[in-house]
């Protein structure tokens, strides 16, 4: 069925903001789409990859991803790259100069902010990049707008030869709503046109481009004043009016159904004159923008009187439950939304998966003394939590290696006998960790590196990477050889060990040997992520409860399938109290990695037999 027929037969589809962006890219005739996985943006590329006739790739990091999209745009093709907010920090080197060149084929950069930090190391406001890089910023407020504005963005990009930032947030990316698609376009690429004065950014050429960029700012500001994405909604109660954008619009409209407001679909450059006129028509004017006071600052600088972050929280989502009391306080009114109570329930922090190959690593790390362990970004960041408590730092992609190098070089006499380690996953290592390793070898640091190669980007759902040997479609491609790579980056061959992370004795030996060596060494694990098809399940395990002594060694593995069935306090011969924890294994969840067997002195853990399986179920 053609897309046109689909539209006719099925007028509205129920999709997430991410899928809406993907469909819009397809329907806008986008020819190249690239990304590095990152919550909440990951699914954009996963959806696009399923459409025929588009080139899509998992790039090795966001800078590479943006540069791929830039290159495609320079050939006249429409291109999209998607990333989470922190991705743009990595990509910004390219962004800040590309703005001088501008776009040839429509270039849309979708940046997804994790407002509320559901799955990120910080909370950033990507609208800043529009100001910093002199680029227009579009902000959809739901799935329909995500579709419409992505299509609009391609057109805007070509009309003004400018890359366009599409600012998404978790409440756009991961909310489903009804979307009506519009007729698709077909856009062919054009011939690459050599134009060094525009495309070769050496000082002499770049200097010529800056005035053009500043002129473009003015043109876009004028465009914004009449842009169809910037809408005034006349309300019936003019006591208070709002300026808002993105997900916050839906919250404001719901909380204040009678209030007049301006919804900024194109929030940068803001339509200052439109807002100035609107400001005069309302009593109090309040800016509701998620995270930073950007519009507020600019509008105040333009001499418009308004309220903002002195009343509205500067972090987290601005839901009705947040803005209703904040605005009530501002107006000296009674709050209509009562705060709800909190019940006392244990926390349920995310855990590593049953049989995760990282479990063995963290079991060992939590049993090695005298360490400083720099962590990184991925599933293995969970090693900072219970029961391992094994990580001492987590900052940014690849930082484990370079931070460990700094710890090694900066340590005082008090830390002289500490073992400095770095823990990093395969995909993060390829994203931005390789440079840190080269820095360590080049500058002769003494760091023991644990390279956890599970052949996938685990935290975002097991996407492929160069370590998988598979591309975004699952087709075979180059598979990186980490041993060779580490050797090429200057680690001596004798200092590189590939180990099976389910074999604890081997792992312990490699770790204890290498921390003693006064030069960089790399321990590479070689078992796949259990979320991927590469992981082969084995028969599940169970516990012979007659043999279990309650020593709780197996609980240090941290496998969620190992459960405490009973606790008992005993008095040891030395008179001290000791709590024994007797365990069973959730055999329905267990996939038989056998890691816990390594830790069980009384041999109480064994494969399930058919009778034992029934017992295990009934124990629940």
């Amino acid at each position, binding site marked *: 069925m053609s897309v046109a027929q689909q539209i006719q037969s099925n007028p509205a589809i129920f999709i997430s903001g991410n899928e809406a962006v993907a469909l819009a890219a397809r329907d806008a005739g986008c020819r190249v789409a690239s990304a590095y996985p990152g919550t909440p943006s990951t699914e954009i590329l996963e959806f696009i990859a399923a459409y025929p006739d588009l080139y899509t790739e998992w790039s090795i990091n966001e800078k590479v991803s943006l540069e791929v999209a830039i290159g495609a745009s320079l050939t006249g093709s429409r291109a999209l790259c998607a990333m989470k907010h922190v991705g743009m920090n990595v990509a910004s080197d390219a962004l800040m100069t590309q703005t001088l060149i501008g776009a040839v084929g429509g270039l849309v950069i979708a940046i997804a902010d994790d407002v509320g930090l559901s799955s990120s190391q910080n909370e950033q406001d990507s609208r800043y990049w529009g100001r910093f890089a002199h680029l227009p910023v579009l902000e959809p407020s739901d799935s329909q707008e995500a579709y419409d504005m992505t299509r609009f963005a391609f057109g805007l990009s070509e009309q003004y030869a400018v890359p366009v930032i599409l600012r998404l947030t978790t409440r756009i990316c991961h909310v*489903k709503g009804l979307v009506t698609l519009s007729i698709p376009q077909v856009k062919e690429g054009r011939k690459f046109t050599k134009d060094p004065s525009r495309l070769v950014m050496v000082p002499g050429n770049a200097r010529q481009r800056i005035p053009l960029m500043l002129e473009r700012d003015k043109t876009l500001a004028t465009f914004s004043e009449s842009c169809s994405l910037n809408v005034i909604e006349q309300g019936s109660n003019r006591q208070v009016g709002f300026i808002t954008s993105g997900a916050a619009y839906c919250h404001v409209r*719901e909380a204040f159904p009678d209030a007049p407001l301006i919804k900024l679909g194109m929030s940068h450059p803001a339509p200052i004159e439109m807002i100035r006129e609107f400001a005069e028509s309302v009593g109090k004017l309040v800016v509701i923008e998620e995270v930073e006071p950007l519009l507020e600052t600019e509008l105040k600088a333009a001499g418009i009187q308004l309220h903002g972050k002195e009343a509205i929280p500067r972090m987290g989502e601005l839901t009705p439950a947040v803005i209703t009391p904040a605005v009530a306080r501002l107006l000296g009114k009674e709050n209509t939304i009562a705060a709800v109570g909190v019940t006392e329930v*244990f926390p349920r922090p995310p855990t590593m998966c049953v049989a995760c190959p990282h479990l063995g690593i963290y079991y060992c790390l939590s049993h090695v003394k005298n360490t400083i362990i720099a962590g990184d970004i991925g599933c293995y960041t969970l090693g900072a939590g219970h029961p391992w408590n094994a990580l001492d730092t987590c900052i940014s992609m690849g930082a484990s290696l370079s931070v460990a190098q700094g710890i090694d070089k900066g340590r005082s006499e008090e830390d002289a006998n500490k073992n400095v380690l770095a823990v990093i996953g395969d995909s993060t290592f390829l994203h931005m960790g390789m440079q840190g390793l080269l820095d360590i070898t080049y500058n002769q640091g003494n760091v023991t590196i644990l390279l956890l190669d599970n052949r996938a980007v685990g935290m975002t759902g097991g996407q492929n990477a160069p370590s998988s040997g598979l591309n975004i479609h699952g087709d075979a491609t180059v598979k990186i050889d980490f041993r060779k790579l580490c050797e090429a980056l200057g680690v001596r061959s004798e200092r590189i060990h590939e180990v099976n992370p389910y074999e604890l004795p081997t792992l312990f030996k490699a770790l204890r040997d290498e921390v003693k060596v006064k030069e960089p060494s790399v321990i590479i694990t070689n078992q796949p992520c259990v979320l991927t098809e590469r992981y082969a399940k084995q028969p599940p395990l169970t516990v012979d409860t007659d043999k279990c002594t309650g020593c709780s060694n197996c*609980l240090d593995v941290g496998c969620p399938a190992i459960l405490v069935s009973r606790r008992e306090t005993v008095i040891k011969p030395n008179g001290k109290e000791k709590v024994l924890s007797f365990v069973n294994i959730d055999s329905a969840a267990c996939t038989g990695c056998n890691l816990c067997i390594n830790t069980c002195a009384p041999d109480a853990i064994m494969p399930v037999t058919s009778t034992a399986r029934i017992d295990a179920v009934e124990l629940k």
Partner: protein
Amino acid sequence: MEQITNILVVGIGGQGVMTAADIISQAAILEGYDVKKTEVAGMAQRGGVVTSHVRFGNKVLSPSITPGHADLMLAFEPAEALRWVTHVRNGATVMVNSYPQAPPVVSVGLFDYPENPEQQLADYPINLVNFDAGNIAIHLGDRRLVNSVMLGAIAAHLTLSSEVLKTALLSRFKNKGTEMLALNEAAFKAGEQASLISIQ
């Protein structure tokens, strides 16, 4: 203001919270409503807390249910029901699968599982429907049927037709063979019956 129905679906990663919310959304769409559904992914496969908000009516604006305003809560685990019970309005129906699942931090003794969560829930001004959907699913032959059991159980408490809800559920299995279809239909019916019995 236009009437919006707010449904809160809560549980833990891997229980099918997202799928249940999707099916309720589809049923609401079939009934001609505007629908928004939040999706809290990311940590979903890591055993963390998972919640999904489904809102339907003539025109839905915010995708988030304001705490204290959920009309119906579908809880896949009793402690999770207790965690979120303050987010429902007075008189809301709270449907709880009484099959408990303790996380590792409880299992090793760092925290306690709430004592008798059902009793604590009963102290709230809600219409509590509490039954062991997990056990029903296991008796029907597959623990994963719990989702269909729970959907059957809320059918009588929704403003949506239970036939439409069942259609929305079964449409997900139309390519999975007649056996899966029959099992899920049976699970839906078992859920419907169980919720009626626990009301009486």
